[in-house]
């Protein structure tokens, strides 16, 4: 087994960067890095060491933590090096460790080793992934709920009903000589409808659920100097972008994420759209167009004291009305006349002032409303995973096929094809149902025995 290495902290600059090593050579590598061949760290303690470059020049002073396998994340010997969070230093450290025999880890390889060494099972690994990726509290809660088997419980009663139908039909064709009660096709259809209804209810939560997990990408667009950055900062409640009076000052796209009622919303502040004056502005404008294309939602800001310009209307017409909100800014100033009439009536319009904060609540509500009243607190279990969603959809399709076959009056074994397929799909989500379970049910329900 070789020793792997990777940067554990996210890319970019920060105070601390962490490099993690896992494998039998971890300790040897750190000894070589610190020029201390006799270094025998006590596990779970932190040591200060200086790391030198190959030239002998100091690279950085670092903190070393040693975790002796199996009492480590991966179950192998693990060494964590906390250095200053400079990408340059991190890069150098990676190179040095690789020269000493470590291999750059593949994606998820630490977790894979953890699984292999029995430190966690696959569903726990999934949970970690989801937890890491959770952008809001509510998303994290959903991840946790899923792991606790809430999804399995929600499907349990549907599965049971489905099994009952299967049992009934299988009994009819398997035990044709036994004295079994008559099958009532209408009753079976009714139960089947119920099952389809429950599954459909769950499937339809995906629209909300996946937003909760993946978030809404929105871009704030508009002419220069309408107050986009001010609005952006207000929404973030901190000064992030540069705000000046000069039109076109926001040269870059800046993206931040906020949480609105548990739903992660990423906001991208963009360069004011006008015909670019200089090269830097051009780049900024190009980025703006890209942000617009990527966005689930556009917040089009208009200066309420001046009214919509032809460019504003052009922006509005370029994109679908449903996924737009018109934020008429500067309501603290006198409003331009005839403003509303120049806008399409189907548009969602909010009046606000980025300066005073007035109307901001309405904007928040409008953002969520644009996606169908997403309120994660009051809703029950949501399907957030596209794999689960896909399986539920396929189960629904199979059941529909069975329903049609049943209505056609076809023989039971044809109806059963769709039912068994649906059960298989549901089984993929929650856990297998085997033939034995169905047979057991048959013999519990009916007196068979010619």
């Amino acid at each position: 087994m070789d020793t792997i290495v990777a940067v554990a902290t996210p890319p970019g600059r920060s105070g601390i960067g962490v490099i993690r090593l896992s494998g039998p050579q971890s300790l040897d590598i750190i000894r070589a890095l610190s020029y201390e061949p006799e270094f025998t760290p006590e596990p779970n303690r932190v040591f200060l060491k200086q790391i030198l470059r190959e030239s002998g020049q100091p690279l950085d002073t670092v903190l070393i933590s040693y975790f002796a396998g199996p009492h480590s994340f991966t179950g192998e010997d693990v060494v964590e090096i906390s250095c200053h969070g400079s990408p340059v230093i991190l890069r150098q450290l990676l190179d040095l460790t690789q020269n000493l025999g470590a291999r750059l880890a593949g994606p998820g390889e630490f977790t894979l080793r953890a699984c292999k060494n029995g430190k966690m099972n696959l569903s726990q690994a999934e949970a970690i992934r989801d937890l890491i990726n959770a952008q809001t509290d509510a998303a994290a809660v959903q991840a946790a709920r899923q792991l606790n088997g809430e999804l399995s419980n929600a499907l349990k009663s549907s599965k049971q009903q489905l099994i009952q139908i299967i049992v009934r039909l299988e009994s009819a064709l398997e035990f044709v000589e036994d004295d079994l009660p008559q099958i009532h096709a209408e009753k079976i259809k009714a139960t089947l409808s119920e099952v389809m209804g429950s599954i459909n209810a769950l499937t339809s939560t995906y629209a909300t659920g996946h937003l909760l997990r993946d978030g809404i990408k929105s871009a704030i667009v508009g002419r220069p100097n309408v107050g986009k950055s001010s609005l952006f900062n207000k929404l973030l409640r901190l000064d992030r972008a540069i705000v000046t009076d000069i039109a076109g000052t926001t040269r870059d796209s800046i993206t931040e994420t906020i949480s609105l009622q548990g739903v992660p919303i990423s906001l991208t502040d963009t360069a004011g759209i006008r015909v670019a004056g200089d090269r830097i502005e051009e780049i900024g404008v190009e980025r703006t167009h890209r942000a617009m294309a990527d966005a689930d939602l556009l917040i089009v800001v208009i200066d309420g004291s001046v009214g919509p310009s032809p460019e504003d209307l052009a922006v509005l017409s370029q994109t679908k009305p449903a996924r737009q909100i018109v934020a008429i800014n500067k309501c603290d100033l006198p409003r331009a006349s005839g403003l509303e009439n120049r806008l399409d009536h189907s548009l969602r319009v909010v009046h606000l002032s980025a300066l005073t904060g007035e109307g901001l609540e309405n904007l928040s509500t409008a953002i969520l409303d644009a996606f169908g009243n997403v309120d994660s607190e009051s809703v029950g279990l949501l399907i957030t995973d596209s794999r689960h969603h896909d399986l539920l959809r396929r189960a629904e399709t199979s059941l529909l096929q069975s329903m049609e076959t049943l209505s056609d009056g076809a023989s039971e074994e044809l109806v059963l094809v769709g039912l068994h397929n649906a059960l298989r799909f549901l089984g993929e989500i929650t856990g297998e149902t085997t033939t034995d379970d169905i047979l057991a049910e048959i013999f519990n329900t009916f007196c068979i025995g010619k």
Partner: protein
Amino acid sequence: MVFDEEFDVIVIGGGHAGCEAASAAARLGATTAMVTLNLDLIGQMSCNPAIGGIAKGHLVREIDALGGIMGRVADRTGIQFRLLNRSRGPAVQSPRAQADRALYRTEMRSTLEHTTNLHLRQGMVVDLLVEKATVVGVAMQDGRRIGAPAVVIAAGTFLNGLVHTGRRTYTAGRAGEPASIELAEALKRLGFPVGRLKTGTPPRLDGRTIDWDAFEPQEADERPVPFSFSTEKIEQPQIKCYVGYTTKDLHATIRRNLHESPLYSGQIKGVGPRYCPSIEDKVVKFADKERHQLFLEPEGHHTHEVYLNGFSTSLPAAMQQDLVRMIPGLEEAKIIRPGYAIEYDYVDPRELGADLQCRRITGLFHAGQVNGTTGYEEAACQGLLAGINAAALAKRKPSFRLRREESYIGVLVDDLIRQGVDEPYRIFTSRAEYRLALRHDNADERLRRYGRRLGLVDDSDWERFNRRRDRITSAKQALRTTRLRKCDAAYLAVSETIKSDLGHSVSLEDLARRPGVTADMVERLLPANIAGTIATSDLEAALADNLYAGYIRAQEVVIQRLNHHDATRIPADLNFKTLQGLSHEMVERLERSRPRTFGEARSIPGLTAAALSTLYVAANLHG
């Protein structure tokens, strides 16, 4: 070692598994000895005098397609043929026949006696002779030693058999026949894991004492469907069976006397089948059922013995007589043989490979009830497979296996060797994921070529098979190319009958899939030159293929999709004990079944999803 006689193959047991094994091995060129306790009881049906039934009928046809003998013997001795599930789709239709019990035996024995290379020997096997984990022969009770490099154990319910009637118990393999005790002990000595199962049988009645008019007759089919693909027509006269019912008083009487029943008194240790329960079981488990169905099955044209199907019991013999008299129509009935329960040893079938050879001892094969199955057909198909492979071993030829995608036999063997048994294993159509593709009438298409390649299918049968397949192909062609057009005379009538719009024109292929369209209707629409050359059964086969094709394809996609990890190989040297997070029990199951792929592991019962995850990761990391 010195032997009194030597053969290529020894088959222990002359029941349904033994007969198939001996016949197949001999016909494959192996000198074969079939050793049985009683030559007069070769081919004896221990219980219900009937062959076939749902899924069982499929097995018989598959045995026949491969070149086995059960189907032919059943065709010659069947006295009431019925195709079950006629009103349902072809995939779940299955042939069944009551047989003349005595005639079945004599026909079976005669078939074996006319088989070259096959030598019948009466006697009891008391030990297996094994050298260096390889079988070399058997030792007989009378002192003889018979040598062979391949031995098939097909001992049925005889291994440590114990019969219970009321409180009386006695060792027996069947009522009136001695049990095989030493052989059972020999298997234990060799280290095989042995368990205990039970089964039961109902009383037989004197037909002269039955009031037949009180029962509902059940007719044979007008057009009996034979089991064997070599049988043109069933010639012998058919009989009726009769349906009757128990009463509430009868149930109450049984309930009052449950303490006399060996199963309920704890006297019997073995586990019985859930699906053929004794009348005691029925009455206790389904207490609110007012009456239970019974069938009167005459055992032959030349005997007045009648089998009382549905009344399996081990209550005391005298009590059985009183109980039977409480059944309407049987007030004067006399019992000729009382019913009884029997417990017997079986060996964990997970000891076997897909060729039914024991992993622990080379050359030793197990077939039939000894593997924990119940039913003549289940036993026979295992016998056939074991016989083929025993001969293959003796002749140094490659072994023969069947896959579950292509046959019920494959399903049965695969279930046994991977999952083991908790109760007597009976075949059901629902055990086959590919049920729609495994029809009784396409067993020849699926398996004949294997039989031919092995050498069990002779020239005339092979010819007949090819002609049938050609006819079915031309039927399918006709379905594809013939169209029913608006201008045709029949168009209006057809469209009215099925109450549906057929468009400008419709191919017979598409028409046949519409609900309400029968085989007869389609036959009448075929062009005369085709209709004259094919039989109705050929058309029915073509229609069935047509009907199911789409469903089979759709199901295939789903199954493959869900099983895409299944091909992942599990390294043969993977030590399951080293996998973290597996309970002792799961490690045990894995070690027993030795799955070679992840797909095989997935089907091991009791393996949790978490354990499977761990196994999957390990399999991937090792590979």
